């Protein structure tokens, strides 16, 4: 257990064309069978560190050494890495061919592949035939398939980048079992994670990668806590007799015009309510939001928003939306213009928009960035800019799909405060999707639980 498999000494790195080093004087030793968790704010360079260990970084400015690799004790092929987005890591169509991809690249002879593939599949507990289509797997299963495809290549170190961001609680539990088994077999595991609490019982060492790029021992920050317990929603008393804003009757949505994703959904959401839509991955939470915005037509039943069947054209200036990975919508030249875009399209002049945009910038502590290119902001800042853009025209209804995805503790707090403050002040109805562990559930007046092909409402 004490044999070091990886030793990094005074390693610093700056991306090509960048003056500032992302990683500074990194010192790290990992022993066989150990699980190290690296946490830290969004954009601090956690992913960069993993890519550096795997030797996947572009030729930038660097100093220091990853010793074990240099001395030949550790080859690049001894390191396996699972990157953040499972969707862009699945390169084949069936479980067998996906796992075989790495072996084919290493020119492993075909007759030796099957045993390694079957071994990897059983190690991650994927009980499917090898010709099972990857497309039909859940997100958790896809993630374990990627882990299996790495395990088939017999790594001595496994690097996992933000597994918690992709997985729901059952998926996290299963991944923890896999990691425990790997540790017992002497494989060292490095996890970069915003929420180390998800994996607290299998982690041996905690480190924090600070915003300045240095790696430090972990302090007892609020992030390093075991998983938050489910907290039941607490319905607030709304003033007067709130009118119904959204009503679903016997709602059923199907996939490919045949298979129901969920059916017989009945619920009413009153003006000013805060409603959380919760459920495991793949249960149809995003589909429900798309149905509410009129981007999906229900197969059966009816849904009405502001008293009419929803359509994007009808809802365009009435609602605000924040879809997953919102930073991909960014297109304007300055942060100010990006936030003010909805007002511009509603016919407001720049001077008319100024007051509200500046108020939001102040709230997010980003006043000094108004004239900057939004593309040059950090991930968390971009997220806030797009959220502000969804709020700026004071929509009566704000729909958010996983608003915390990829954010660190500090940014989550800012998003949460902004949402609660604006919704309180403007009596705005909030509907969001999320996982049970995201901490936003305690602010919900009501929770719509999506599971087993149905939607249940709890107050």
């Amino acid at each position, binding site marked *: 257990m004490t044999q070091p498999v990886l030793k990094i000494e005074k390693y610093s790195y700056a991306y090509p064309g*960048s003056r500032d080093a992302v990683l500074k004087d990194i010192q790290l030793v990992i022993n066989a069978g150990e699980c190290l968790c690296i946490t830290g704010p969004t*954009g601090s360079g956690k992913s960069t560190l993993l890519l550096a260990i795997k030797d996947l970084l572009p030729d930038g400015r660097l100093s220091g050494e990853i010793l074990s690799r240099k001395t030949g004790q550790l080859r690049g092929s001894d390191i396996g890495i699972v990157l953040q987005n499972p969707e862009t890591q699945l390169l084949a169509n069936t479980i067998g061919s996906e796992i075989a991809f790495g072996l084919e690249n290493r020119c492993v002879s075909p007759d030796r592949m099957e045993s390694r593939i079957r071994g990897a599949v059983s190690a991650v507990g994927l009980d499917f035939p090898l010709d099972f289509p990857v497309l039909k797997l859940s997100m958790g299963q896809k993630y374990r398939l990627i882990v299996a495809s790495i395990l088939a290549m017999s790594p001595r170190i496994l690097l996992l980048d933000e597994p918690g961001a992709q997985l729901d609680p059952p998926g996290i539990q299963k991944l923890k079992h896999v990691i425990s088994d790997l540790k017992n077999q002497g494989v060292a595991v490095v996890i970069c994670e915003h929420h180390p609490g998800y994996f607290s019982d299998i982690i041996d060492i905690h480190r924090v990668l600070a915003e300045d790029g240095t790696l430090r021992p972990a302090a007892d920050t609020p992030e390093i806590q075991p998983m938050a317990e489910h907290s039941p929603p607490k319905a607030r008393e709304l003033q007067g007799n709130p009118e119904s804003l959204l009503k679903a009757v016997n709602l059923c949505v199907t996939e490919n015009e045949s298979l129901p994703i969920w059916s017989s959904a009945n619920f009413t959401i009153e003006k000013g309510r805060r409603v959380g839509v919760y459920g495991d991955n793949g249960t149809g939470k995003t589909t429900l939001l798309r149905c509410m915005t009129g981007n999906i037509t229900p197969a059966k039943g009816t849904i009405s928003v502001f008293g009419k069947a929803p359509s994007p054209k009808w809802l365009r200036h009435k609602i605000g939306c924040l879809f997953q990975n919102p*930073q991909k919508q960014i297109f304007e030249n300055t942060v100010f213009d990006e936030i003010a875009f909805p007002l511009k399209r509603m016919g407001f002049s720049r001077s008319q928009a100024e007051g509200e945009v500046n108020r939001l910038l102040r709230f997010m502590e980003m006043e000094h960035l108004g004239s900057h290119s939004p*593309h040059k902001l950090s991930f968390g800042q971009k997220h806030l800019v797009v959220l502000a853009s969804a709020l700026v025209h004071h929509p009566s209804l704000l729909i958010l799909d996983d608003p915390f995805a990829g954010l660190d503790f500090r940014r989550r707090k800012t998003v949460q405060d902004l949402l609660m403050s604006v919704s309180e002040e403007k009596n705005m109805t909030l509907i969001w999707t999320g996982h049970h562990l995201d901490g936003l559930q305690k602010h919900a007046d009501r929770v719509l639980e999506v599971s087993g092909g149905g939607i249940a409402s709890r107050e």
Partner: protein
Amino acid sequence: MKSLFNLNRLSLKESLFIGFCAVFIVLLRAGLRLHLGIPGHSMLFTVFFLMLARACVPYRFSASFTGLIAGIMAVVLGLGKGGPLILLKFLPPAIVIDIGAMLIPAWHNRYLFCILIAALAASTKFINTYFVDYLIGMDPTVNLQHAFIGSVSGTLFGMAGSLFVPPIMGKLNAHGIIGRHFGDNPEVRRHGEEKT
């Protein structure tokens, strides 16, 4: 082919971006055929994405590579009515764009150069049609008229498609999204790595 398309000079991400441009050419061509009945409209997207690939990826044959991939893709997906001959639809305009880009540095920042190259590229549809009809033995005058009908609107659409290139490239450059190798650029890296 190996010597002409020395793909080792392209990084994998650049090759994949070229592949995506080819996908869009084929998809939009197939998708819009169902909805619009205007002849030659597919040149709008063909020329735009061929030019985009050439402008974003600093490789002498980027557009030709895109055209080749688009042609093969159309064959594989069965989206062209010409079978293996569909390659003729994508390659000639792509080659013209590559030649134009070689002769005019910084062409993608100027509307005039874009329109000029696009007009030449899209007008290859005329040569294509004329060549095939000539092989068949069509009467020269009828051939000329047939090729003209097919290519004039295509050229106009191609020129219109090229008008999108300077603003898009201007934005990509201004925001630091594109450099000599776009994938090594901190902007794309940030999007890619921190995306969840």
